């Protein structure tokens, strides 16, 4: 134990198995894995922050298109029905279904958007070489914690299933919101793979947040 360095900042602890690693021995590789359980600890990609921010901003802009433009249009004879994401959320807004309406809204719009905005808030000043804003760390921690609860990509598969179920009843066409939602799913997936949690945390550390 005497051989342990005093500076705790030079250590990385594996979140899955608690194994202690020295940063110096890890950062040589482009992609460092835990020596015991194989969990990826850090990916060194120096310019990732610019790409991550660009993708997050793109997704945030697309999200506004999604919420207010028609998502799907259903035509059966002379009857036309359009649904935006907003309408989808509101279908459950009566009585006992209210919690479900709330859950759908939160998991497909509110949480994905919160994650994006929190990330932008934490890292945009850093990208322009300024010091971090207050609560930058809190907002990044929030963005990370919400990750499993943002379900935009699952909603997309749900849309596909609904399309098939209705195809025998009526003519369906997709609106602009559908395409921008599909784009968001791709952009967010790309952003999450480019992001290395550990590097971003140490970036925040250095910026004195």
């Amino acid at each position, binding site marked *: 134990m005497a051989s342990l360095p005093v500076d705790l900042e030079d250590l990385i602890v594996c*979140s899955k198995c*608690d194994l202690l690693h020295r940063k110096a021995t890890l950062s040589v590789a482009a992609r460092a894995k835990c020596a015991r359980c194989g969990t990826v600890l850090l990916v060194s990609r120096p310019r990732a922050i610019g790409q991550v921010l660009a993708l997050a901003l793109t997704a945030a802009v697309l999200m506004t298109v999604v919420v207010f433009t028609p998502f799907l249009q259903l035509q059966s004879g002379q009857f036309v029905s359009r649904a935006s994401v907003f309408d989808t959320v509101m279908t459950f807004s009566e009585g*006992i279904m209210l919690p479900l309406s709330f859950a759908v809204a939160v998991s497909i719009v509110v949480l994905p958007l919160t994650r994006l905005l929190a990330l932008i808030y934490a890292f945009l000043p850093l990208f322009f070489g300024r010091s971090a804003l207050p609560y930058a760390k809190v907002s990044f*921690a929030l963005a990370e914690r919400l990750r499993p609860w943002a379900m935009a990509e699952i909603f997309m598969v*749900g849309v596909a299933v609904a399309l098939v179920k209705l195809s025998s009843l009526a003519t369906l066409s997709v609106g602009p919101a559908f395409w921008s939602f599909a784009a968001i799913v791709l952009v967010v997936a790309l952003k999450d793979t480019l992001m290395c949690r550990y590097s971003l945390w140490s970036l925040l550390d250095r910026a004195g947040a």
Partner: protein
Amino acid sequence: MITARAAGLVGCQSCGRANSQGQTRCVRCGSRIDSRTPRSLQHVWAWMAVGLIAYVPANTYPMLITSTVGDRQESTIMGGIIDLVEHGSYGVALIVFVASILVPVGKFIAIGYLAFCIPRRMQNPHSLLHLHEVVEFIGRWSMIDVFVVAILAALVQFDLIATINPGIAAVCFALSVVFTMVSAQSFDTRDIWDRVEETSAGT
């Protein structure tokens, strides 16, 4: 190889920072930290039990209520899948079957298996960790059916001719998915690896 606990440190699970013992919040990211999550398995079992309870009405009550002129049809999860098969959309029927039946049931079994094996130091830690990752990844996908119901109900509102409304099972099903997700997240994967440490310390 030495763990943070053996070195007298506490690792932060959200940012990987090593903290000195006695700290309750990570010095870097402010997350709550514990060397090992206390009573994690009790949380796992409890959340899984509520998840199971919610899964029963999710299957017996109607998921969709379709009303056409003078006619009212209620369909459960399984009924919806059978409808799809009768329409010949086998692919979609398979997606819904996997997402609403196979994944939830498989998840209950997998969580139970993990919660049974971990305290008894059974199984290879690598395969347990892998199983846990699969359960965490796949659990969210069960929400597909809830979203399908939401979309159908939003689109099909032609007052007199046909309307689709969500049934009570949609709420139960969504709750069941959420509870099992929390259950899977309640595992402390570091427990899996502690026995490796114990056996090497013993020899």
